[in-house]
């Protein structure tokens, strides 16, 4: 399936490119814009971005696979990211992670059949002072415990 940026996003893309002396560094920002529009980074997205930036597909592909925040397959409507890095782990991060897996019934990087939820175990999201935490799409939920976390999921159902 061919991928093209919307007119609105093309403006954002051009703004991103204008930030740097060469085109290549804009690749990360543009990938994020593409992911917002498309939901995930398909091979067609990579081809389109490599055309825009005049770099090879391989270069963009390397960046996409390096960073975990670019999804290489379609994710759920609510993409739940649970931190199990040091601070969160010490304050019960794994308890939350395990309860999420049980509640939604999928594992790491799994997607529910109805495409509603997807789950990912992540490293530090920079919210150690309010550990343990999880993020749903762009929103952080902090100072959690198992019950609070389950309530949040319940409210989304």
């Amino acid at each position: 399936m061919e991928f093209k940026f919307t007119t609105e996003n093309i403006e954002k893309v051009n703004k991103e490119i204008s930030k740097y002396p060469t085109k290549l560094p804009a690749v990360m920002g543009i990938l994020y814009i593409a992911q917002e529009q498309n939901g995930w980074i398909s091979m067609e997205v990579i081809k389109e971005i490599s055309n825009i930036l005049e770099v090879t597909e391989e270069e963009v592909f390397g960046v996409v696979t390096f960073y975990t925040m670019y999804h290489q397959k379609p994710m759920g409507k609510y993409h739940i990211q649970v931190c199990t890095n040091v601070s969160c782990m010490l304050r019960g991060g794994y308890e939350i992670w395990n309860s999420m897996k049980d509640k939604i019934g999928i594992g790491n990087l799994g997607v529910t059949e109805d495409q509603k939820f997807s789950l990912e175990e992540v490293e530090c999201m920079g919210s150690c002072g309010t550990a343990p935490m999880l993020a749903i799409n762009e929103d952080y939920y902090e100072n959690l415990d198992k019950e609070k976390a389950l309530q949040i999921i319940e409210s989304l159902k």
Partner: protein
Amino acid sequence: MPHFILDGKEIQFIQGQTIIEAAAKVGIDIPHFCWHPSLTVSGNCRVCLVEIEKMPKLAIACSTLASDGMVVNTNSVKALSARNAVMEFLLINHPLDCPICDEAGECKLQDYAFDHSVGESRFVENKVHKEKRVSLGTHVMFDGERCISCSRCIRFCDEIAGVNELTFINRGDKVTIDTFPGKELSNPYSLCVTDICPVGALTSKDFRFKSRVWDMSSTKTICSGCSRGCNVEMWVRNNEILRLTPRYNEEVNSYWMCDEGRLNTFKSVNADIRVNGPHIKRDGTLVKAGWDEVFALATSELKSYNKSEIAVLGSAFATCEENFVLAKFAKSVLGIKNIDFAKHEKPNSGDDILIRDDKSPNSFGAELAGIHPLKDGLNFQNIMRAIDEKKIKALYLVEDDLVSLDEDYKKILSKLELFIVHSSNFNSTTELADIVFPAATYAEKNGTWINFQGRIQKLLPAVMTVEMDRSLDGMAMSRLDKFGTEFDRWGKSKKMNARPIWKIITSLANALGTKYKYQTSEEIFDEMSKTIDLFKGLDYQRVGELGVKLNVTTLAKVKV
């Protein structure tokens, strides 16, 4: 000149050189995996860590610029323990499958593990498993677990082959090398990545599992694929060529060669359709005959034609020496003027890296050695026309498959009354011949070729014919050759009953009553250096392993 001290030795350098470069220039090898003299510096393997006085931390020799008065230690306690730590780290996820790995014996990781590692690992966890036996392209196989992520292959594709075909994917301990989904490693130089891979991660599909490297002999010779004349090592076991690898010559091919040359040039030497012994046509088919019988037949046949009815075609695949003797034979023994050779140009098949349009290795040398029409003589096109018009009735052709150039030549050549061919393999041209002399291939003889730059380069025999002996003829020898006996399996090698062109021509000339005394190719070369201006002062010793560029100013006058 500025200088720095490396392990107590004073080393001169040019401003802008890194420590590793300056050391390499004077022949000191600082351990390295990712650094390659022809590629950009990436500095990711960390094995070249050295201690530099007055610097707080160890520095990598591949990206640290040498500066005047610098004192560098590669063998201090700190440097040694750092190198050992890097080795331990690189080996953490390496499968240590040397016993089944093709690279074993020429593996940098293996060598350095022996030289720079204490040989103990503290790693007790499970190794990370990655994809094995990944086909990256038509010629290259990838083993993800053996890879140490040095990025040499990626940089080679970007910087030398000019196509960005490989990339790192994923990160950390999961990092591996791949092409873009749906694409392949398909550049015409793809197999060079197997040469520069410091471990057994990238291997040649053509050579995989054929031989342990220490069981082969390697001979420094020249690739026959085009007029570039890439310097190569020819690897032979049991008198059979198993692979070619590029040999460094900055003036010609640097560290590289193309896949076509590497894979498809030597196969004909090992082929089943080799001409083994002289052949004569009887009742429409070629049958084996004795040398003396064939010489007698050829001389009596050649005598029965007028000088104007005979043409001689030399070859851009034969050596300078062979073409020289052939030209001399044609002029002074046969007394003919119709001498030329066929060109093998494939327009637009070359590139600006190595590959040339001229698919023959020695068209320059053939011309220079005297293979061109004499005054009033016919050139190649006119010879073919004259054969078609039955004005030329006898053709003497060496080492060229004319029919492969043009199918129409088949009809023309079948009009000949006498067709004598020197050929290493049976092909559609030998089918038409009355007499076929078995020609030694470029891998079975001494001689020289001149490449398109006018550089004269030496061929060395790597494969024995029945007349040769690996040890007595000073050929390269492997461990098996040295210590094997005739009762060993590898001692029973196949040898062809074939001779170089100059040897056959010498016999023919003698049979026709002109005494040629050539015993070796070198004697012919010495005669050439006395009679051909451009060769003046040259001998085999001076041509050496890397060749000599002929005088360029005079070169312009020679029509190629």
